[in-house]
């Protein structure tokens, strides 16, 4: 099977046992969608399962083929929780040797899932429960001896199972707008970490490489100069934001990054590795917009989003509550909300606006794009064209897949 490992890992947290199932790819884009497959796996293994998976195109040379997903049980809206997994985490998940991972049951004690090279272990992590998401990521990477391990970490809010908690990927927030973080807490997981030395075969490597380069070059010409998050949203197109901008960063395979790193504790022009935690990576458009709306400047907005990420709290919701308890939102009022997830629970629960979810005007295109393993934000920007993407199928998976079946 091309671009796949051919394997689903089903891990029971209660028994700590891994069962493997063969993964068989569907014949249409719809049946190949990560989201559809995750729905099927939830029906088979239990709706309370937490399911991680990658798209058929994840890790290819198709531009911005970085995405995976996490699917959790239905939230208050009755729909399954769905979180895109961006950055390098999607590709790394695929390289870990599994196409999908189904996490069942509840761990007796706090622990983290360690997924690598076709193996999954539950690592006891009592001590990590008291750490924030950044320290958890640091600890997992240090303990396993590799700084490139991708970590989906929770924080205090996730541990408290707060519906507005947020799973954090490699220190940054913005992927989880559906409360997958709370699902980590419910399963007594402090993190899920993955790394892999996998290799993915292609039907026609040369053909795919050449076609992808042509497409990427067309995109680069069409998109013009990149300004990071400001190229995707006016929210980052302001003086105080630009003043703190250090460098823009792409996810795997992205030629036109939306991630802008602001330095707040050292000169943004400092290129050397001096401070260990000098700033924060912005790509959470609704949270940043909310921060500016409640009166924070770019520096305080950066600090606020960093605090939320460390706590594993959804930043838009936190800032909204901060504005309800204080006539002028400051970092102190953000701290006040973050300090006690149980107290914040008393506030009205509302779904935060989508981040990547808002890339397209409609949910269906978002799910189609994400389900293939592509970044919805990039593809909304460049123009998502199913027939164009479908042309890659023959070289990638060795057969044609009709665009109309998406």
């Amino acid at each position, binding site marked *: 099977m091309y*671009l796949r490992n051919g394997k689903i890992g089903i891990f029971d947290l209660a028994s700590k046992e891994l069962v493997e199932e063969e993964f068989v790819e569907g014949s249409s884009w719809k049946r190949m969608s990560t989201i559809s497959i995750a729905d099927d796996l939830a029906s088979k293994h239990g709706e309370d399962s937490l399911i991680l998976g990658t798209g058929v195109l994840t*890790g*290819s*040379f198709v531009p911005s083929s970085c995405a995976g997903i996490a699917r959790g049980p239905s939230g208050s809206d009755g729909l399954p929780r769905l979180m895109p997994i961006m950055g*390098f985490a999607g*590709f790394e998940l695929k*390289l870990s040797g599994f196409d999908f991972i189904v996490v069942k049951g509840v761990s007796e004690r706090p622990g983290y899932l360690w997924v690598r090279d076709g193996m999954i272990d539950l690592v006891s992590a009592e001590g990590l429960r008291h750490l924030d998401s*950044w320290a958890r990521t640091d600890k997992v990477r240090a303990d396993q001896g*590799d*700084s*490139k391990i991708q970590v989906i970490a929770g924080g205090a809010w996730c541990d408290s199972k707060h519906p507005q908690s947020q799973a954090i990927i*490699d*220190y940054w927030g913005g992927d989880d707008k559906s409360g997958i973080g709370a699902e980590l807490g419910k399963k007594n997981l402090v993190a899920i970490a993955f*790394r892999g*030395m*996998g*290799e*993915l*075969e*292609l039907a026609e*490597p040369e053909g795919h*490489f050449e076609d*992808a*380069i042509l497409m*990427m070059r067309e995109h*680069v010409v069409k998109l013009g100069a*990149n300004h990071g998050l400001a190229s995707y949203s006016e929210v980052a197109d302001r003086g105080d934001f630009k003043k703190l901008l*250090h*460098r*823009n*960063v*792409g*996810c*795997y*395979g*992205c*030629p*036109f*990054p939306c991630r802008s*790193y602001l*330095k707040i504790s050292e000169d943004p022009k400092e*290129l*050397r*590795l*001096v*401070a*260990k*935690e*000098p*700033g924060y*990576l912005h790509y959470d458009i609704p949270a940043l917009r909310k921060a500016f709306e409640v009166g924070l400047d770019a520096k305080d907005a950066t600090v606020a989003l960093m605090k939320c990420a460390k706590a594993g709290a959804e930043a838009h919701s936190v800032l909204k509550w901060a504005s309800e308890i204080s006539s002028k939102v400051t970092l102190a009022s953000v701290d006040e909300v973050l300090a006690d997830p149980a107290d914040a629970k008393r506030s009205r629960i509302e779904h935060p606006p989508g981040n990547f979810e808002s890339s397209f005007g409609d949910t269906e295109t978002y799910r189609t794009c994400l389900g293939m393993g592509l970044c919805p934000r990039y593809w909304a920007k460049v123009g998502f064209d199913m027939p164009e993407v479908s042309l890659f199928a023959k070289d990638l998976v060795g057969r044609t897949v009709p665009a109309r079946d998406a």
Partner: protein
Amino acid sequence: MRLKIDPLKCVRCGLCEVACSLNRDSVLTPMTSSIMLHVDDKANYFGLVLKTGGSSVVLARPEGTSSGQQAGSSGGPGAKPILLREVCDLCEGSPRCALICPTLCITVVD
């Protein structure tokens, strides 16, 4: 012919690593590449390391590019140590990393 790396143009998309491995083994993986991303996420410090000889490397760091020797004890960036990786062979005249680099961070010069 050699590769020229302008590290400040890098957006750490990682395509160079995978393109390099593709040329070597016809599979998608960053594990067998001669060019490697070096990343410190929290500080947003990132650059490229290119293996050019037995223990010779080009370090394309944000503060500048330099040539040097890889320390024998160093594992280097990633799970597979630099010392265990193949030396860049410039893909026999058409370096894949330069072809796919979307920002012209990696270019070919004479």
